[in-house]
């Protein structure tokens, strides 16, 4: 061991593979393919949102003006920062600096949680402003404009699905951080940090697409 606090880095070979290079390649590729399917899942929602913009431009603009642009923009910045800290964690894991890596992972989880809190606050404001048309008992701010209702509902479906991914992401990240803090973890499972990082960057990327499609276009 060269320096204090630096642990050896490696991957434990599973029996179906012949060598660790093959195993790393397979794991990375598996995650990329999973993310492609996730992208297509969201693509269905993006498609519907864009079709609505074409078929009902006025109603969509009216609805989009009610969305909280600044909360969305702040959240975009937060997620980009969290991707930066996640990249830091990956770099440190490659170097074997386990303590630093754990701190960067915790920072990532905190930024992700901050996003969820802000998003929750935004939902509360939407509720107060009567922008929740799928609650049939509550009157709707833009009553009479049915196509806008549709767009607001889609906004909840899309941000809800993204939020679900983020909550899952933060939960997995916390469990992973706990495991990764154990001595010798980097020697056995260093590539899990990298693979998880791909997923985290992906959640960030999806938000970077969601934000302009829902909040910015036609504004």
């Amino acid at each position: 061991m060269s320096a204090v606090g630096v642990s050896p880095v490696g991957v434990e070979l599973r029996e179906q593979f012949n060598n660790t290079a093959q195993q790393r390649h397979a794991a990375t590729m598996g995650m990329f393919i999973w993310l492609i399917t996730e992208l297509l899942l969201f693509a269905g929602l993006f498609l519907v949102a864009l079709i609505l913009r074409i078929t009902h431009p006025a109603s969509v603009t009216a609805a989009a003006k009610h969305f909280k642009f600044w909360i969305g923009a702040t959240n975009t910045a937060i997620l980009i920062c969290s991707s930066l800290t996640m990249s830091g964690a990956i770099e440190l894991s490659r170097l074997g600096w386990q303590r630093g890596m754990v701190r960067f992972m915790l920072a990532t989880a905190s930024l992700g949680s901050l996003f969820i809190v802000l998003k929750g606050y935004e939902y509360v404001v939407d509720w107060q402003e009567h922008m929740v048309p799928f609650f049939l008992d509550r009157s709707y701010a833009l009553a009479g404009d049915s196509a806008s209702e549709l767009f607001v509902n889609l906004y909840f479906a899309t941000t809800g699905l993204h939020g679900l991914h983020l909550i899952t992401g933060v939960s997995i990240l916390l469990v992973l951080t706990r495991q990764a803090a154990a001595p010798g973890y980097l020697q056995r499972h260093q590539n899990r940090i990298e693979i998880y990082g791909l997923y985290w960057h992906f959640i960030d990327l999806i938000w970077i697409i969601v934000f302009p499609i829902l909040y910015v276009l036609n504004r």
Partner: protein
Amino acid sequence: MSPLDSTIRDAATAQPTIGRPKDYLHEKSTLASWFFTIDHKRIALLYLASITGFFVIGAFAAGLIRLALVVPNGQIFSNDTYNKLFTIHGVVMVWFYMIPSIPTTLGNFLIPLMIGAKDLAFPKLNLTSWYIFMGGSLFTLFTVLVGGVDTGWTFYAPFSTTFSNTWVIPALIGVIIVGFSSILTGLNFVVTIHTMRAPGMTWFRMPIFVWTHYAVSLIFLLATPVITIALSLLVLERGFGIGVFDPALGGDPVLFEHLFWFYSHPAVYIMVLPGMGVISEIVPAFSQKKLFGYRFIAYASISLASLTFFVWGHHMFVNGQSEMASISFSVLSFAVAVPSAVKVYNWTATIYRGSLRLDTPMLYAMGYIGLFVIGGLTGLFLATLSIDEHVHDTYFVVAHFHYIMVGGTVLAFLGGLHFWWPKMTGRMYNEAWGRVGALLIFLGFNVTFFPQFLLGYLGMPRRYHQYPPEFQLLNILSSAGSTILAVGYFFPMIYLVWSLWFGKRASANPWEAKGLEWSTSSPPPTHNFLAEPVVDFEPYDYPIKARERV
């Protein structure tokens, strides 16, 4: 019989029985060793048992449908019961039998063996996807049997969102869950084929079976997420009225059809492509001849998988899409015939001047080729706009897709099951019974479905259980055929199970076939090969070659 190449390429078959490791079936025998196994071969058998169960349920519903259609006045079942019956038949057969059938059983079993790997890249994920499949499918089965659903397997809006009074939401949730199982299986296959090939196993040395499964996995990965989100929006629509498919809010029910068929047309190729892979293995083995046009068949598989994403509109010719869109989709649908025909011609050219043996797998393969041609050609009728206007939503369509799905997928599945049965179980089935079963299925299938072409052409609509009395004769003929078909299906179910205990022991390569899977013992040991195989031969290296001139 032609001179046979007896070179032994793997140590497994040369080793004496003593000292050889136990095969995967006998290594452990506890119940837990089956339900928590991560061996791809055992998981394949778990899938085989499950989808056979679903097949029996779906076939039983089909039998009841044919029973109801014996009389024209629809007195045997009420309208509601009839609607629920064809929904059970469609949902169970499409989602829980056809789509998983060949990939999860034969594909799961054979892909690692064929490329010389110890297992799939993610064995635990493989087991997880079986559990997801069982969870989702049993839940849906409970829903359609206890509550009943009357939307058909297509779940069209606005009927499914607004008007149906049945258990649509639980059925949708079950189907969505099963979709994740498909995605994970496809992911596992793609990564395995990319990263786990043995030394020397280049892309163009892979058997066509592996190529077609690669193509199918791409469809699983690219199409399934779209149906997941479309069905999720349907759930939200029915549950909360979010309005995406509701014209009252400015939504569009046709949008659901677009999203649905963007998945469900490729899903047809999920059902057909693996069958093509099976046939491409059986035909050379029973002709003892090198597969004709190997590269063309490989390319045709990938081009089918690509083209299939651009033809979904041919399901919607009469549903209000623009004329321009319809013409484009019609032209693209014709294009699909090209790679399909490439395959058929190549199989035929392989048989030509081969050294033929008409054993059970080859009978199924020959049946497949004939029925696939009929199904494919009638597909061209339907891709023609003017004819489709006439026969849309009639029994002509029903007959067409049964020729592709039953004549194609089911025959290929059964052919493949017989072909690899010795490898999977280490036992031979009874050949005479096998041939009788294959002939009965072929006969019964044609008697059942050919009259439906005539009925459809004369104008009998699908999904109705009352019809004018002049159609009764053809309907009775079709129902009579379905009983022959049912008897035919009983044959393999009985003699295959019987062979598990009483069948003759199989050698490593009972068909004198080529390919890595035949070089290891039958049944294979847990990690497939005793030593990692090295591939230094071309695919389909059979004794008879095509003449080397154009």
